[in-house]
């Protein structure tokens, strides 16, 4: 292979990396919102993403494919719909389980309920992924998308020797993901609810005195976090086949991205997820498949060991 072909391969995987990275970024934002407001790392986040995927898959099959005049963008609507649906699920999960070990209830637990929260979400992950195996079956499924087979061509560049293909399905998914992140970040920064969430995060006690219902703030943040990550899952559902254990693979990506960007920062999490996506796709051209996740893990471990505040130094809280 000559140099030009190397460059072409690199650019190709870089482009693919940006497209998947944006979706990873979206999922990381979901995880970081929960951490930023509640100071809880949700070990079950990958499982909520998996639920987002299956939501998209099942509504799609239940509606019998493309019901509206073969409108090709229909699966994206379902993916976005996974957000509000999983928001409600997250809300319920918080109300029935997490609330008992967070917020005001945490103070009476050993070590501020810190490990109780982790263990609880860990148990939740076990129930969801294994329950998923039962309900959804262990077979690989995916949302069939016509768009997956079409690509835009960039080029020819450099004396007609380089052509880059941009997958249409991934591009639209990435654009939607970016849109959700931007809307959400703006909402958190500007809206009254966003401000009260940040207040509850910065100083729960003071927030209570200011008349903010911290428990409700946590519930909303958990719902947001779960819903946002589920949208990311829905957008990936037409990308590659999946099964109920897929959460474990993605949870690695999410932790790596969030830690890379600095726990609790929305912008950091998005950039972290984006970097992980690029890293993963670029490394795919020279690393065997199984080692890609190992490499992401190594990045993650190196980050927390050497620079726990994150690479970008964006340690602001949920802003």
């Amino acid at each position, binding site marked *: 292979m000559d140099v030009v072909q190397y460059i072409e391969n690199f650019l190709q995987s870089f482009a693919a990396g940006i497209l998947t990275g944006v979706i990873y970024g979206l999922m990381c934002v979901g995880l970081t919102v929960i*951490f930023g407001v509640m100071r809880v*790392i949700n*070990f079950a986040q990958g499982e909520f993403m998996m639920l987002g995927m299956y939501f998209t898959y099942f509504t799609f099959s239940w509606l019998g494919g493309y019901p509206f005049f073969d409108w090709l963008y229909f699966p994206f609507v379902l993916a976005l719909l996974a957000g509000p649906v999983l928001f409600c699920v997250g809300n319920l999960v918080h109300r029935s*389980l997490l609330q*008992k*070990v967070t917020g005001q209830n945490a103070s009476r*637990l*050993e*070590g501020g309920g*810190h*490990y*109780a929260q*982790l*263990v*609880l979400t*860990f*148990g*939740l*992950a*076990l*129930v*969801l*992924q*294994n*329950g*998923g*195996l*039962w309900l959804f079956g*262990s077979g690989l499924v995916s949302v069939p998308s016509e768009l997956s087979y079409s690509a835009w061509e960039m080029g020819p560049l450099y004396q007609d020797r380089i052509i880059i293909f941009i997958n249409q399905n991934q591009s639209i998914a990435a654009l939607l993901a970016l849109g959700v992140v931007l809307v959400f970040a703006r909402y958190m920064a500007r809206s009254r609810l966003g401000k009260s969430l940040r207040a509850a995060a910065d100083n729960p006690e003071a927030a209570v005195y200011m008349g903010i219902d911290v428990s409700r703030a946590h519930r909303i943040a958990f719902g947001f976090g779960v819903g946002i990550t589920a949208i990311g899952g829905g957008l990936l559902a037409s990308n590659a086949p999946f099964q*109920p254990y897929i959460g*474990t693979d993605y949870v*690695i990506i999410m*932790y790596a991205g969030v*830690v890379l960007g600095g*726990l609790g920062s929305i912008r950091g999490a998005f950039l972290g997820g984006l970097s992980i996506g690029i890293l993963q796709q670029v490394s795919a051209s020279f690393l*065997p498949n*199984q*080692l890609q*996740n*190992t490499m992401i*893990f*190594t990045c*993650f*471990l190196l980050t*927390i*060991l050497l620079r*726990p505040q994150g690479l970008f130094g964006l340690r602001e809280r949920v802003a």
Partner: protein
Amino acid sequence: MMILKRDLLHIVLFCISYAALAALVGNSYYLLIMTLVPVWAVMGLSWNLFSGYSGLVSFGHAAFFGVGAYTVALTLQMWQLSPWYSLVLAGLLGGIGGLLVGLPTFRLRGHYFALAMLAYPLVMLYIFEWLGYQEVALMMIREQPLAFMQFENPQVYVYLAVVLLALALIVTAILARSRFGMSLLAIKQNEEAAEAAGIDTRYWKLLALCISAAMAGTVGGFYAVVLLVVTPFAVFGMLVSAQALVIAMFGGAGTLWGPVLGAVILVPLSEILHAYYGAKVPGIQGVIYGFAVIAVIIYAPDGLIWKLRAFFGARQTPLPASSVAGLHTKGSASLLACGVEANAAEFILEVKQLQKSFGGLQAIDNLSFNVKRGELLGIIGPNGAGKTTLFNLLNGFVQPDSGSIEFEGASLLKLKPNKICRRGIARTFQVAKPFPRLSLFDNVVIGAYGASHNNNQACMLAGAALQLVGLQDSAHNLPAQLSNRELRLMELARALAANPKLILVDEIFAGLDPESVQVVEQVLRKVTALGITVVIIEHSMKTMVQLVARFVVLDHGALLATGIPQDIVRNPKVIEAYLGKKWLAHAQAH
């Protein structure tokens, strides 16, 4: 040791009756379950030895389990190494794994520690897949069943598993009752106080993880022998880490029998349900473990064993109560005397040009002062003058940006708090930091560990310290039952038990009523009478003027004045710093 004998009796009785039960069972499927119960109990005990006692929850014990399983499978495949030997090797490699994981990971705290531990086994999972060990079957060597641990009779595996369980229980029982267990309990309850009391927290955590990982490695190897097939998912998967954690927490973390109870209930339940409904409900095991741990966290965070004990009306067993030798020995206070004649000319501590800033805030600014051996020195200054930061620098919680601290002529820079405590500097905290679930006496015993070679000596020192501060009568109370004054005195006793030459006392009078102030003052005088140097921080000058021999006055991290109390109270700079310029004129007018 009495308690240990009782434990031993219980262990032997349990294991023999379990083995006897197995002898009555003929069904090989039930025998397999009966083998898996002790296997997972050992795994639970392994998790418990580290996480249950130290309080650092590991979400990745599968890493060590898997290393053990692959060690046995691969050495048999490559070199026909008998499991009798490779099980030992598996334990050894597991222990080394614990060391390799612990060394970098203990630098992390809280969430980061949890995330990193979750990551290790998953990394291993992918690496073993990549190496091409998707499925390693153990070679059958039927002609020598005994030599290769391949028995026709499945009952033999139950017996072997029970032997492993007995070993794990004995190791746990011995360690839990020793300095190891006490140190880990102290770390679990308040790591900072433990470090300041002379406990090398990093050492104990590493040791705990190594022993725990060696246990996990051995039992992982045995698991491979029993199941005959090893796959990355089955030994490194999240469910393995989860089972270890859930079994221990379900039964009761930090107890000897908790993990056994957890395994006896959860393993048969999940295995039998899996056998009957596994085809219809494939993930049922994971669902059961998941629900079990959620239920425990919400309804019985301490584990089932405590609920059972409460139900059967058993007396709540107190946490390891050390023997109370020395508590009422007459004249034991002399144990604490530091044995060096006070020589007013000699400096015990010399601080030179100390600098420390936090971001833009200059907390300590070019500070130099000395402490004479045997004196009672007061460091005063308004709130925010940098007093507590100074103590944190002196006892090693914080490192200075520049400058030097010399204790008896040797530099203290870059030493960890526990090492500084062993050199002879103890401290108390402004906000009392007791270990809430240990008795007053055990709280003090922990302070004595740094200065003693064995448990007995530690108890003697603790007894002497309690007697000196006058708390010998409440020795068995829990910190929650103590008054504010008693808590302060307990802090002082814990510092004294380390047999220090110098004690740093942080705002011990704050919020005490006048009578308590007098009591504490008297105790401090007794301490100096023993030849122990005392440096005491206070922001109110009133109580201190009567007590101390000399003052060091700080303001904004810098030295404002030093001298005897009579001079200090008239020093214009001091009055200005405390009361402002307006009052200075007022004071000078009189």
